[in-house]
């Protein structure tokens, strides 16, 4: 799969020109014109195709990383430090509810 040898004779400067836009591109926020240019470039440049694919995959893998859950012992100590001990109850019952709430 590795495209170690650049088979095309285009300049690596071309690739560098798009580097700044790759992150916006995978977020879908790159300007329309740059987006078209980059896609035209990718059609001819395997390296940039691989970089875009693996960049997207990298972000997906991080999105899928399981969220660490705060242990009850940590929660209990927090309530104690904050002088809220009477309000403390273990999180076990609502652990799932807490795992994936967006801000």
């Amino acid at each position, binding site marked *: 799969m590795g495209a170690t040898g650049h088979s095309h004779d285009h300049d690596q400067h071309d690739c560098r020109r798009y580097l700044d836009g790759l992150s*916006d591109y995978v977020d879908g926020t790159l300007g329309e014109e740059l987006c078209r240019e980059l896609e035209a470039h990718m059609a001819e440049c395997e390296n940039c195709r691989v970089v875009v694919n693996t960049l997207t995959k*990298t972000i997906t893998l991080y999105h899928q*990383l399981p969220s*660490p859950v705060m242990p009850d012992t940590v929660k209990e100590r*927090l309530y104690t*430090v904050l002088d809220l001990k009477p309000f403390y109850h273990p*999180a076990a019952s609502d652990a799932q509810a807490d795992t994936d709430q967006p801000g």
Partner: protein
Amino acid sequence: MDTSDEAVLVARLQAGDQAAYAQLVEEHAGRIYRLALRMMGNEADAEDVLQETFLSAFKSIDTFQARSSLSTWLYRIASNVALMRLRRNEPVQVSVDEPLERDDGELIPRQFFDFCCLPEEELVRDEVRQEMKRAVEELPPSLRSVFVLRDIEELSTSETADALDLSISAVKSRLMRARLKLRERLSLYFSHGSISTETR
């Protein structure tokens, strides 16, 4: 929580209502702990950051303005606490804040192994996830904070900017650098991994 519920909670907090304090902790401690753990890389430091964040939030709740949400406000306090601790721990010669003008050379992709085509079970192994966590922990803190908020906690660009007191363009530029570094590192990791699997 919708904005009117939040306004009520803020009013109760500012009036010193203990139950409101407990509600704030109940609703946000889990997320703040996750951020702290990703930033600090170990549970003991994460717990310190968690406690310091809420202590500091309680102390400054009077100055809270509804310009941002409570959630973003807490993220901001927690990020500051974490970054301050990381600064304290770093050897003096290592700057926590990378210079803004960056060295393009270090960002140029060098790994072109297309690990997308690996079987999904290869990509989500425990060992891979450990490597992913290590990779984040080894990012410079200024990039790490942006990456954790944007790509792990999945805040928007503007929420991240707000939480870290950065401009939108600074968030985008740091996110780009973080992502490219992580992509590079994972590519290298998977290219080695797959060689050893293939030769088995």
